[in-house]
């Protein structure tokens, strides 16, 4: 039984990290309806900036973690300004293609640094003993990761619910023309959406980097891994991302915990989320918490 609860706890931990990684997709999609394929690369960049600040510059890891969030905030904002601003009003599929191109560009920039091809590991600052409760364990790194995730998600939820800027972002996602007419600057909102996505990506990068070590391929493949999370939750729902993240985390843990090795099955954790995703989508075509668009002919 403790094995079962261990799977549950691990699933929730992993799931909340997924949720944080998925948050960046949701933020961008919510305002501009664009799926940012290069998100994984931004996650990796955030992790590497944290590392560079900690080790090469010598700032304490907590500070450099915060600082890297600020840096990626502005980096992502300038990416939007330089590459995507021109494309407002162009077919969405072209914009998605541009993010595919961006993926290559960020790859290229990272391969110019040692991070592209060498492995690194964050300096350890947390206790190495696990937090154990009734035979269920979880590491300090994971604990801190979960705390950061929920703080971030809470902050974003408040931001969209209560702050003027957040509300104007929601207005833009609802109707661009109507929001323009009441004086909201749509390009600024898009810029801000990218910037906040960058910020959340840096946070995700820092946490994942602490769990897996810093390897470019591992970090950037998170961009794709969280795809089903984003969709199951509904592309435009922050709350949905948390729920879907945790569902995915649990599914994966249960799959690798109970299915792998039986009946000749292996690697089910990588495929089961997609199967479940298909089934969920057949019943709820807009994800669990996505907004149903009313279509008019």
């Amino acid at each position, binding site marked *: 039984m403790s094995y079962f609860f261990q799977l549950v706890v691990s699933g929730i931990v992993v799931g909340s990290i997924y949720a944080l990684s998925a948050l960046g997709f949701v933020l961008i*999609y919510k305002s501009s309806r664009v*799926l940012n*394929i290069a998100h994984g690369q931004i996650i990796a960049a955030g992790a590497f900036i944290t590392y560079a600040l900690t080790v090469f510059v010598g700032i304490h890891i907590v500070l450099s973690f915060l600082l890297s969030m600020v840096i990626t905030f502005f980096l992502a904002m300038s990416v939007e300004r330089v*590459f995507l601003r*021109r*494309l407002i009003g*162009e*077919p969405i*599929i*072209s914009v998605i*293609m*541009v993010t*595919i*191109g*961006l*993926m*290559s*560009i*960020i*790859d*290229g*920039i*990272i*391969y*110019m640094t*040692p991070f*592209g*091809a060498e492995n690194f590991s964050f300096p350890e600052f947390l206790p190495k003993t696990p937090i154990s409760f009734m035979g269920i364990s979880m590491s300090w790194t994971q604990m801190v990761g979960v705390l950061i995730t929920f703080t971030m998600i809470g902050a974003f939820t408040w931001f969209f619910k209560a702050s003027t800027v957040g509300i104007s972002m929601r207005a833009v996602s609802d109707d661009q023309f109507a929001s323009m007419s009441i004086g909201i600057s749509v390009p600024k909102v898009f810029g801000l959406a990218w910037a906040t996505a960058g910020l959340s990506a840096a946070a995700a990068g820092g946490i994942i980097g602490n769990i897996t070590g810093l390897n470019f391929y591992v970090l950037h493949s998170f961009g*794709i891994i969280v*795809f*089903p999370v984003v*969709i199951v939750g509904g*592309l435009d729902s922050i709350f949905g991302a948390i729920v879907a993240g945790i569902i995915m985390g649990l599914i994966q843990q249960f799959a690798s915990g109970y299915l792998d090795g039986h009946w*000749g*099955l*292996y*690697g089910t954790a*990588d*495929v089961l989320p*997609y*199967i479940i*995703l*298909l089934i969920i*989508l*057949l019943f709820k*075509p*807009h*994800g669990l918490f*996505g907004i149903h668009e009313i279509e008019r*002919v």
Partner: protein
Amino acid sequence: MSESRWLATGNFFTSYKTEQRIFLTHIDRLVFICFLAVLFAWPLIIEVGNKYMLVIDSILIAIIAVYGLNLLTGFAGLISIGHAAFVGVGAYTLATFARTLGGDHILLTHYWPLMIIVAGLVGAVIGGIVGLPSLRLKHLYLVIATLSFQMIFQWFINFSKFYDQGQTIAIGRVFWFTGKVGRRDHYFFWYYVILVIVVILGFAVRNLLRSKHGRCLVAVRDNDRAADAMGMHPGFTKVYAFALAGFFAGVAGALHAYLWRGVGFESFLLHHSISYLAMAIVGGLGTLVGALVGPAAILILELQVESLAEFVGHYFTAVGDVATAFRPLSFGLVIVLFLMFEPRGIANWWRMVRSYFKLWPFRY
């Protein structure tokens, strides 16, 4: 027929039939025939290395796959990022025969045209099945349904004992009237085979779009309820679009298996799907010319970027990984800049050039 069939400075159609002609003017037809003649003749005159022959062959195969993707995404408006898996279905149809009968079985080596068609049909069936969620899903949610298919395909092959867990399954060399096609003539032989298929399927796509079976795709893309009111079944049309895409992808997959002389799952991964989509978008969605130009543009760009990176690398040996980094960097930059300034793809240039000649000596 009042207007000249050689030159047309504007639209003078008097019946739908004239508007639906494959070639609007005799000049169009003449240019096309000359172009085709060049395509068939050049390998006999100019000799290029195997590498370039391989690249050209893979461009042609990608064109066939992108025909399908373009029908699906460009004409029917259903975005798919699982196209490489459809290509994989075609290739693995051959692998199924190779695993049960042996890679050098007469069916694979002598009756290869039949095998190519079979692979296309299997691709169509699987495409239709995968298209079923499109009855309910729209936009990006459908994208993810195709992504799921991609992931499930990869997992299935990678863990399936029958397919040797994704390791390369060899396909034997084929026979022609002159005997076995050896290594020396391999790429040369397949150039002609694939070129013929590209031309036939190109005409097929063009003719399809002239008929109601093609126009229904566009109608459903633009407004499915209106299409419904006109008597088309939107759901059936979407599934049919997936089946069509699956057919083209299946044919491409079979050719891929023959050209590479083996089927391994590493050729049908997610990033291949993304690059097929890139080809379709860069070429120009919703145009036949786009499907022809896009793959050539992307694959040649890749090659050029590689040479450029090597060239740069020789100058900056001390800087470290510049040569490595330069390749993705410049590839991404070209794509991004191109789409920033020409989001409608290369086909748009083609349209502008054509209209320039059409209106010459006047400008717009």
